[in-house]
């Protein structure tokens, strides 16, 4: 399987792995402390500070590394929440059918009829803005999309002969969901996971940029833009580094997701 990875997917895989590696070992890799002031305001790039310094003289590379840690951590946890809630409810809706399916599906339609950023802003106006709240709000809002996908996939699988055989054998609902449906629905869900993860990175960056996400002195990519945006009009590009980071991460994850998606569609074609 690992031998014939297409070039694009390999590049994507490499950069995705690199970002996660840097995020996990941020405190070992970062040259300075996260909130340590080490120089003048907005120093240009030099041997000591590869990306220069930020709006209050912290090393920008350090901020970017710690920022990546926060952003990737939040996005990962939110994706996990979104997937567990969305797929379990989606499978349940497909297996149960009837009014439970109707209720869940119509509720999801309702939530999806408003842009999630707007709904998130409404909710964040009354809740304290902390990392657990952010992760929950983002994860639950996004689980609606996972719900739709997993329900659609599970409805198809639910009518397969082997599921019927399991039901006739007298297996319970839990068995059918986790042992029959889940393994067969995994590939499209994994491909979707990449896209949802990217969406989460963009979402948390946007919220932080608006001042409603990660709060200072913690660093995150959206927050770094917010802190350094005033430099732009003086021709200081410090606020643009997160753009590079987010774009490369997003494109690499996209490349990997595309590859997984292609593999799964060819799989399906083979099956019938």
């Amino acid at each position, binding site marked *: 399987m690992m031998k014939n990875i297409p070039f694009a997917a390999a590049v994507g895989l490499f950069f995705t792995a690199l970002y996660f590696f840097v995020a996990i070992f941020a405190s070992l890799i970062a040259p300075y402390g996260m909130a340590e002031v080490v120089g003048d305001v907005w120093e240009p790039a030099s041997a000591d500070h590869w990306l220069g310094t930020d709006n209050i003289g912290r090393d920008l590379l350090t901020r970017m590394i710690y920022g990546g840690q926060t952003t990737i951590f939040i996005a990962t946890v939110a994706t996990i929440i979104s997937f567990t809630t969305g797929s379990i409810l989606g499978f349940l809706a497909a297996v149960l059918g009837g009014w439970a399916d109707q209720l869940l599906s119509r509720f999801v339609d*309702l*939530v999806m*009829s*408003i*842009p999630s*950023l*707007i*709904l998130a*802003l*409404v*909710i*964040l*106006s*009354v*809740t*304290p803005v902390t990392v657990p709240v952010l992760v929950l709000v983002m994860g639950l809002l996004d689980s609606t999309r996972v719900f739709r996908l997993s329900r659609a996939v599970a409805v198809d699988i639910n009518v397969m002969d082997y599921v019927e055989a399991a039901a006739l054998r007298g297996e319970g609902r839990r068995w059918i969901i986790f042992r029959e449906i889940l393994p067969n629905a995994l590939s499209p869900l994994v491909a979707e996971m990449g896209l949802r993860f*990217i969406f989460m990175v*963009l979402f948390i*960056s*946007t919220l932080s*940029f*608006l*001042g*409603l996400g990660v709060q200072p002195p913690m660093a995150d990519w*959206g927050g770094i*833009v917010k802190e350094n*945006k005033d430099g*732009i*009009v*003086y*021709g200081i*590009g410090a*606020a*643009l580094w*997160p*753009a590079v980071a*987010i*774009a490369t991460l*997003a*494109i690499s994850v*996209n490349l990997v997701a595309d590859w997984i998606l292609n593999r799964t569609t060819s799989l399906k074609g083979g099956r019938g």
Partner: protein
Amino acid sequence: MGPALKLVAQRLALGILLLFLVSILIFVGTLILPGDVAQSILGQSATPEALANLRAELGLNDPPLTRYFDWLGGVLTGDLGTALTNGKDIAEALGSRLSNTLFLAFWAAIISVPLAIFLGLLAVRYRERWPDKLISAVTLSTISIPEFLIGYVLMYFVGVKLGWAPTVSTIYDGMSLGQKLNSIALPVAVLTLVVLAHMMRMTRAAILNVMQSAYIETAELKGLTMFKIIWRHAFPNSIAPVVNVVMLNLAYLVVGVVVVEVVFTYPGMGQYLVDHVSKRDLPVVQACGLVFAAVYIGLNMLADIISILSNPRLRHPK
């Protein structure tokens, strides 16, 4: 009554029902959440008297159902209440900001829609050749960057380094149209880029889908010219998907506008909403949320209606 009209009436009714449900969702979303709303607005250090005052002002002592219907009644009669932070009438403040936002979105749409359809056609015409690949590479990278960062990238290179456009988009009533357009040049460019990418990709997919149908092949085999095939067979059948794509993206503009307005400090709805979310000004947030949701739902409904009306099968019932 033809089947098309009946479907349109159904969509309208559904849209109104949806809007009503969304108003409940927005209202409940700010209620059911853990903790006391008054407490989270004023913070931990608030005195009991201040809390009691705020609760009375927000009507938190009434049962939720009464409050909801008071609020809904107000919304339906155009009374959105007053802002907590400055005591001003929300409907008044929203009016001018909404027109500013629509002004911005209008120009972004005027530029991006024809451009997206043109680029989509170009990509289909040169499918799998370099123009198609170039277009899809560029659009993939604009999709991968959040709106606000595209904003700053443009501001940095076009606004500051080249000095072609103002980096702050202030507009007021006394300005001429030309001055206004100059001042919103950058935000319009950002919105155009963001929407263009989505719209172009979806247009390409929609037209490709139509071009691969059996009747196009039949027309080709009949010996019709390419022009005639596109005009008589492909075009009428791609109106519905393309209009759908356009409307979906106009709805997407509504969200993009929130962030882009903050980037360019443009006095529109989005900035108003974000400002008041951080000030925890509940009435303003609810009102803005409802307006945004209404525009979003309205555009989606319009997309459905147009695609019903443009569907030849529904227009000429047997």
